[in-house]
């Protein structure tokens, strides 16, 4: 037997093959997410530096950074952020809990469906923000009204997507559950909830964004703290730099929350293989 060279050999034979034109999106671009925002930031900076964007229209990025510093040290920006986050989290928490429970009840029982589904579909077509005047009459202009509004606005996407996810579970799994004689509670735990999870997580992504939308609106009513309160004050004094600070913070909130939901989704949906991977 001869001893052969086991090192990887390069360019021994030419690489000739037939390659089809790619129809899918192709390989991932590294740091793809940041390309768009950075380009936007570059345009904004260039516009401000050349004077094309006047400070009265939109403050220059570096002035926003300065304003951020001032708000932080002199106007308790951290307190405002925490106050807003607290409001959004409370409202979102109630919205998720109620929306999720309603979706499961309405998805699993015909009576539940007839009682719950209609009102929610009707509620969907009424913009929650249009209900604020009514909520002010019911709950006053304090914290309750704000949390109820955020909860209601985030409840709808959770309900719709969880319900849809649940109803899309293949009936053959229910049949399997019947043949192995498991109870209703175990059926919900092992089949309904995991099966509806992809829908629920999609609903979460919409709910998080909706809750921030609700936050922006409710914080304009008689708030004494919060990012919306800060923006409202800045509007009265004509401080566009502070308004932009507020907008950037809302954007960061939204992005972080959405990333968190997607990260959780990748973890808990490890059993799926999709085009995403």
């Amino acid at each position, binding site marked *: 037997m001869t001893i052969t060279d086991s090192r990887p050999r390069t360019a021994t034979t030419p690489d000739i093959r037939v390659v089809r034109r790619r129809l899918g999106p192709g390989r991932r671009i590294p740091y793809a997410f940041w390309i768009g925002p950075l380009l936007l930031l570059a345009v904004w900076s260039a516009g401000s530096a050349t004077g094309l964007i006047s400070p009265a229209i939109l403050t220059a990025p570096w002035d926003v950074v300065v304003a951020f510093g001032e708000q932080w040290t002199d106007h308790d920006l951290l307190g405002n952020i925490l106050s807003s986050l607290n409001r959004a989290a409370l409202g979102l928490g109630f919205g998720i809990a109620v929306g999720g429970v309603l979706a499961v009840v309405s998805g699993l029982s015909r009576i539940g469906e007839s009682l719950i589904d209609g009102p929610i579909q009707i509620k969907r077509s009424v913009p929650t923000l249009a209900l604020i005047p009514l909520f002010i009459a019911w709950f006053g202009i304090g914290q309750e009204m704000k949390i109820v509004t955020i909860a209601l606005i985030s409840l709808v996407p959770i309900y719709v997507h969880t319900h849809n996810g649940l109803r899309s579970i293949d009936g*053959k799994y229910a049949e*399997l*559950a019947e*043949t192995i004689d498991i109870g209703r509670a175990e059926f919900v735990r*092992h089949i309904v909830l*995991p*099966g509806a999870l992809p829908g629920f997580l999609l609903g979460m992504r919409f709910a998080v964004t909706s809750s921030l939308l609700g936050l922006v609106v409710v914080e304009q009513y008689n708030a004494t703290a919060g990012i919306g309160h800060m923006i409202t004050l800045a509007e009265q004094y004509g401080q566009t730099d502070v308004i932009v600070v507020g907008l950037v913070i809302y954007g960061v909130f939204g992005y972080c929350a959405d990333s968190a939901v997607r990260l959780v989704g990748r973890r808990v949906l490890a059993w799926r293989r999709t085009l995403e991977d």
Partner: protein
Amino acid sequence: MAPDTRGLIAAPAVRVRDLHRSFSADGGVLNGLDLDIAGGEFVALIGRSGTGKSTLLRALAGLDRDVAGHGEIEVPANVSVVFQDSRLLPWRRILDNVVLGLRGPDAAERGRQALAEVGLEGRERAWPFELSGGEQQRASLARSLVREPQLLLADEPFGALDALTRIRMHALLRKLCEAHKPAVLLVTHDVDEAIVLADRVIVLDAGVVHADVRTDRPRAELRSFLLKKLGVREELGVR
């Protein structure tokens, strides 16, 4: 004292009398079918498409609550079904699928043993999508066996597998049935599969038993008899 005859005479595991099932008003799928399966007996059910094989199996499994019909069915308390697709829950790992709904502190241990029996030790933590078609079907067999069924109903369990995997699965199923001794009703449209696996082959036609033979006859003769009963003419070189 009366002699204890338990274990001497196999009690009938399945007793079906005058079973009717129909999906539409103008014709029944099952038309007065009678069937007995003894405890521990392996029965294969063959027949052309639409002769009521799956309808009968689903009736025995209690999965036909919305189908019109009447008749008597007696089955043991502990029945397990193996479907053509493995029906593993994609969101549960293999071991969790096998012990789904089992109670008791030793459930996981029993599940592990069942997986070892079907040759899947070491795959307990795998997701169903990571298994090949044959492995998925073996996991679903483990899920049935871990429940120690008195009656195992299998609806074309190997129908979606390739020919080589199928031969290996035949050997496995025979071994498992000899070890656990459930009564088995296997629906298949493969005559050879029926002959290889079963003690008795039943041919279904027009919703009644058309032929009922034991498989202790010479294989070629049996095969040709069953094919004739199925309405297949053997034309070329069968020796």
